[in-house]
Each structure stands twice: as C-alpha cells, then as structure tokens.
C-alpha cells in the first residue's frame, strides 16, 4: 500500500516471493513473542501469522472446539487450507493455553510438511527466567541447525540482532511520534505492522522515511488508546477514523506490547533474552496487572488519550482476566474506558461501532 510520501511498502506475498527467489527460506511465526534475529541467522525470514482474518474457518473446525479464540482457529484453518505452504518451518511460541493447544495439535495430529518448532518463553523476569530463556534460545538454535543444516556464527547472530534492535528502535519512535506522521490509523498500522514480515533492515529504511518527513499537525479526531491483541478484522481502523477517533497509542499484543529495548550482553543468546524479557508488560509473560495499569496510565498521559478502548478477542483469557482490574484502575485515574469484543472472522459488528460511537460521544 503506497503511503503518501513514503516509498511503497511491499506486500507479504511480494516479500515472500523475493526472499524465496533469492534462495532464502520462510518461517511462519505465530503470536506473540519470538526471536526474529535467530531465525534470520538461519536464512529464514520470519513472517508472522496473526489469524489471519480472511480464511475459511471450516478447516479448523474439524480440530478445534468452538470455544477456542479466532487467532488460533484461523491460524490452523490457514495452515490446513495451504495458506502457509510457502513456509519452510512453522514457529509456535507459547503464550496461552490456546497457542499451546495449537502447537501440540500441529505436532501430534496435523503433522504438516514443515517442521513445527515450539518455543516456550518464561512467565517472569527473574534471573531464573532469564537463564532459562537463554537456554531455550540455544535449544531452538540446535533445532534450527538440524532443520536447515546451517551453523551460523556468533558474528552472524550479532549482526542480525543489531538489525532487529535497530528496527525495534525505529518502531518505538514510530509509536512515540505517530501523531505528527500525517498518517491515518489504517496507514499507521500498515506501516507499523509491516514489521511482522519485512526484513528488519527494509522495515527500518521505510519507517525512517516516514520519520524524516517534516512533522504535520496532529489529526483532529478524539485521541484514544487501544488495548487488545490485534487491530483486526479489516475495516476496524477505517471505522475508527470514520467515527472521529484517532488512535494515539496502543497496547496491542501485536504492536505496542512488542517494543523491545536493545540488549547489552555480548553473548548473542543472552542478548536476545534481554530484549524479549525487556518488552512492555504483557499478561502472557506473567507481568503483574499493576505494571500493566501503570503503563496504560503513563501511555495515556503521554499521548493525550482521552479514553481507553479495550478491543478484545472472544475467548482470549489473558486479556479477559485483566480487563476488570485495568478498567477499574483507569477509571480511578480519571480515564474513561470501554470494552468491545470481536471475532477475527466476523467483520466489525454494527453494535460494536455503535458502542464505540457512544463512547466517543461520552468522552468528547
């Protein structure tokens, strides 16, 4: 999608085709946290799979009960429909019971052509968590060696880490300066979420173009902060623009919750672990609710958000457990909130839009 003043952002298929024809491999990566630099070191381009929204979910229905979230249902349907045939490996990080089930069903029953690589990030930031994660990354390295036949050097790994850290730095800047970029919500997320599939260096170059443009006055919509998993299904962002809301900050699992800080450790594995554990609070990494709340309040204050919208996916336990405490805490801090629940496969329901409109009227 060409954004005004920014060089065109290649689409997923274009990137995949280009990478493959240059002899590279593709790692289809499921949510939420994964070591991109490690995959790149093995010549695998990580291409993330958040759902996707447009997929025939009947494929997944043969394996999953209806009370499983649409991220997992759609992902499995996508695999079964051949949507990931282009991938050489499937990486399934663990974040919740549903992703755990997805990884296990893929390995034990679906058994796709590609190797399935599970990855278990720890649920804390204690020294034991850090050491475990370092060892888990080393174990993933060993499995990737077996799959690809390659043995990337420490230097290759460090180069990759530097590129990823640079991309994360640029992404963080994009988030911080989003109001002056002259992009509407849909454009902003097209750019920010291209981090999910572009090679880090390509993403950084494109994002820098956006950052280097002279700042423009902030959009006039009502400033709101969004929290949830992913701003899907399609149309949701346009709907926000249409009803006069400007998303000035987010706490999406796919976006604002993955602004990893750079690590410092000279050992590449420890450094990747530092980055992954240093990200913003996230229930799936075991962060206390109070930390999440503090961050949401700080983010709202910094961005000027007038209210917080929890945009949750049905059956998403990590989000649903935190919701009442977060809403209560924000309310006490003088920040109005609302919450809507969606399913990736169903467009944006009329009643959700009405609810959002009513909320905006209330905070206007």
């Amino acid at each position, binding site marked *: 999608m060409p954004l005004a003043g920014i060089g065109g952002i290649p689409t997923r298929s274009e990137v995949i085709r280009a990478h493959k024809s240059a002899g590279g491999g593709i790692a289809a990566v499921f949510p939420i946290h994964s070591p991109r630099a490690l995959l790149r070191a093995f010549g695998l381009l990580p291409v993330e799979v958040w759902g996707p929204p447009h997929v025939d979910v009947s494929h997944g229905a043969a394996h*999953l009960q209806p009370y499983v979230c649409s991220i997992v249902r759609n992902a499995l349907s996508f695999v079964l429909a051949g949507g990931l045939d282009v991938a050489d490996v499937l990486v399934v990080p663990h974040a919740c019971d549903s992703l755990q089930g997805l990884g296990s069903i893929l*390995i034990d*029953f679906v058994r796709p052509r590609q190797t399935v690589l599970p990855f278990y990030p720890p649920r804390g930031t204690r020294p034991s968590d850090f050491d*475990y994660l370092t*060892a888990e990354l080393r174990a993933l390295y060993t499995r990737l060696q077996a799959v690809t036949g390659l043995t990337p050097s420490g230097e290759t790994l460090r180069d990759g880490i530097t590129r990823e850290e640079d991309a994360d730095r640029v992404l963080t800047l994009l988030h911080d300066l989003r109001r002056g970029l002259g992009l509407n919500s849909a454009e902003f997320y097209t750019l920010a979420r291209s981090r999910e599939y572009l090679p880090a260096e390509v993403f950084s170059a494109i994002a820098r173009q956006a950052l280097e443009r002279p700042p423009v006055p902030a959009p006039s919509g009502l400033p709101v902060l969004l929290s949830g998993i992913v701003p899907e299904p399609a149309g949701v962002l346009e709907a926000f623009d249409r009803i006069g809301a400007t998303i000035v900050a987010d706490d999406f699992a796919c976006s604002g919750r993955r602004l990893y800080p750079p690590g410092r450790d000279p050992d590449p594995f420890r450094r990747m672990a530092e980055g992954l554990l240093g990200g913003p609070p996230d229930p799936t990494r075991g962060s206390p609710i109070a930390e999440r709340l503090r961050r949401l309040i700080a983010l709202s204050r910094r961005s000027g958000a007038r209210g917080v919208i929890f945009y949750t996916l049905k059956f998403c336990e990590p989000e649903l*457990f*935190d919701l009442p405490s977060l*809403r209560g805490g924000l309310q006490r801090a003088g920040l109005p909130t609302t919450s809507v629940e969606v399913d990736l496969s169903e467009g944006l329901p009329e009643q959700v839009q009405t609810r959002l409109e009513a909320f905006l009227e209330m905070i206007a």
Partner: protein
Amino acid sequence: MSAGAAARYHTGVAFGRAALRLQRLRSEIRPARSPSEHLGPPLRLAPRTKELVARHWLEGRYANPHRKVAWVTSGAPVELLKALGFYVVYPENHAAICGTARVAVSIASEAEARGYSRDLCSYARTDLGAAFSGKTPVGRLPRPDLLLACTNICQTVLFWYRVLAEHFGAPLLLIDTPFVYYDVAPPHAIDYVRRQLEDAVPLAERIAGRRLVDADLRRVARLSKQASELWMEVMQRNRHRPAPISAIDQFIQMAPIVEMRGDAVTVDFYADLLREVDERIRDGVAAVRLERHRLLWDNLPIWYRLRYLGETLGAQGVVLAASTYTNAWGELAPLIDPDQPLESAARTYLYPILNRSTGHKLKTMLAMAQDYALDGVILHSDRSCKPYSMGQMDQRDRLIREHGLPALLLEADHNDTRCFNEEQASSRLAAFLEMLEARP
C-alpha cells in the same frame, strides 16, 4: 500471632471436629442406601471422606491469623509449604465443592457482575466470586498470606492468580513449568523448575516465619508419595471385572489426594479405602450391579451432574472404570523421591498430563483402555478447560478410526450449569450407549 487467635483457632477446630465426628458416626450407624437399583452400595468409607474434607475446611475457617495461609493451584509443589506449616487452600477444590453443591453459578455471578467474562474458566470465576463476595458453602475462606501458582495445569491459573494477588495484596510465587511438547522435558526446563523451587524457599520461609527443615520436607514428600501410590492402587483395582469403584466415586474420593497431599491422615485414609475396595472385590460388590460395558472418562467431571451420569450409565450396565483425571493424581508417584525432594519435584511437577502434549494424552488413553479392558471413551469437551479439551477432536477420531474404540465427545462445562444442555447430552449419550450395545 496473638494468644487470642490461637485460642479461637483451637477451640473452634476442636468443637467443629467433635460435631463432624458425631455427624459421621450417625451416618455410619444408618448407612446410605444405593441411589439406584442399578448401582452397587455406596462406599462404607464415604462418611469419613466427608468428615475429612469438612475438617480441612473447618481449619481454614479459623486459620487467620493463627496460621499462615497459602492459596495454591492443584498441581503446585505443595510439599514445600506443608513442610513450613502453611494451611493450604485449593481454590479449584473449593470451586468443585461449589459445583457439586450447585452454588457455583450464583457465586461465579459475583465475579461476572464485576466484569469477569463468562468465557473464563468456571473454576476461576467461582473462586473470584467467592473471594469478592465471601460466599462459600464451607463457612469461610481464610485470606491468603501467599499465593502459589504453578503453570503445569494451565496458563489460566497464572492469569487468575495475578487477579488474586491484586485483590488480596498477597505475594504471588510462580513456578513456571514449560509445556512438554515431546516425550521428555529438555534438561534446561527441568533445571529451570528446580531453580524456581529453590528460589521459592526464602520467600516462603519469610512468610512462614521459620526455616525450612530438610527432614520435614522429606517427611512431607514421603507422605505425598505414599498417598499417591495408595490412590493409584485403589484405581488399579478396577482392572478387576466388575469394577469395584467407579470413576464417579473416584471423583469424590480424590479430594484428599488433592487438598491434603503430604498429610499423614491422607495416607491412612487411602490405606483404608484400598482395604475396602479389596473387600468389595472379595465379596463380589460391583460399582454397577450388572456391568456390561466399561468406559474411560476424559477431562474434569461435570460436578453438578455426577449423580445423573452415574445413574444413566448404570441403568445401561455401563461403568466408568477409569478416568484420565483421577489417574493424574496417582501416575506421578514413582517420580517422587523423598530423599531428593526438590530435585525430584522439578521432574514430578513438569509431567502432569495437562503439561504434556495432546499426543501423549492419546497414548495415555490407549494405555488405560488396554490396562482396564475398556470398551470406549467419553471425552468431556469442557468449555472451561482449554488445555484439557484442545486435541480431543483429533483424539476421538484416532480412537475410533485407528484403534476401533467407540468414543463420544460430550459438550459441557465442569462447573457452569448454564453451559450444559441436558436434553442434548442425554440424546448423545443414549445414541452412544445404543451403539455400544449393538457392538458384537
């Protein structure tokens, strides 16, 4: 700790125990009759189970502030806390009691009214509802001084206990147990769990106000192991045909192995249960009088329909001779090494069935089907419990197609009656039983 609190605790517990003993004696004098002509007589030990469980909750009622209280998940390494003298509450067990007493929905509604979605696990909702409102069928739940969550049953407990930590302002000790996708856990995962257990000691000691004594930890681990072994033996007696103790009875009799693991009284209890089960075999007493078919139950029970299920199946000569759920509380006994309590706990607590792959669960079901000479499987697709339920559709298909074992997926929820469609469940069950009956 004040002398007044100690006196209140001891007096309250002593009076309560006397009352419970009396109740038990009365029940023993006038033993309950079989609830149905198709079922065998109730276990003689049943009044004692009731007394034991009630005594546990009675202590809880008076525990604050006399004893340090920990709320723990059902798969948590509780031996450490027991050795430090904590009174331990299992919110899942409490929720199951609410389910059996059919008050779970009204208590869960307290959480729902505060914004907790009905899509969350009904144990969690029941527990949060009880924590917010104080409603409970056990008298009173003591406030926790410590929360211990172990992710070896699900990630749900992590999200749930974070809410409890907020609500009570109590510290949350987390034992994170990486999911075992393949046959064995990688060494770094075992190291990780061992280290977390070691790191947990200072916080637990600080709250307990005393040092951990190795001999105490070994003693508790030994008692845990003995009780788990005895429980396993009780279940294995169902290799006998007819089965002496159905899984429906096991669901009730498993309460002590969950909430009183590590206590001497629990070992005695299961030794007596084993004796009674052996007597039943000797005397030809069956759980289902005319046993014709033997089935496996997968997943949590439907607590509020235990009786319905037992009677419906019993009327057709069907006994639930085994269950993956009750089995989970015995199968890990060999891994417990009382001489190396923390090291062995790292392994033991990584390997519950819920922390293992969907393929491993299928293998467990097949092994149990063979071991107990079973004719089929009922897989309870439990809307609340994703880790137990995900994979069941493939497991059912494999059981049927590759192993010729009839298998039924029964949609329900272990605690939330609103998710149980009696009519639909009855007709699916009836069709399944007809099919079993028609098999050569």
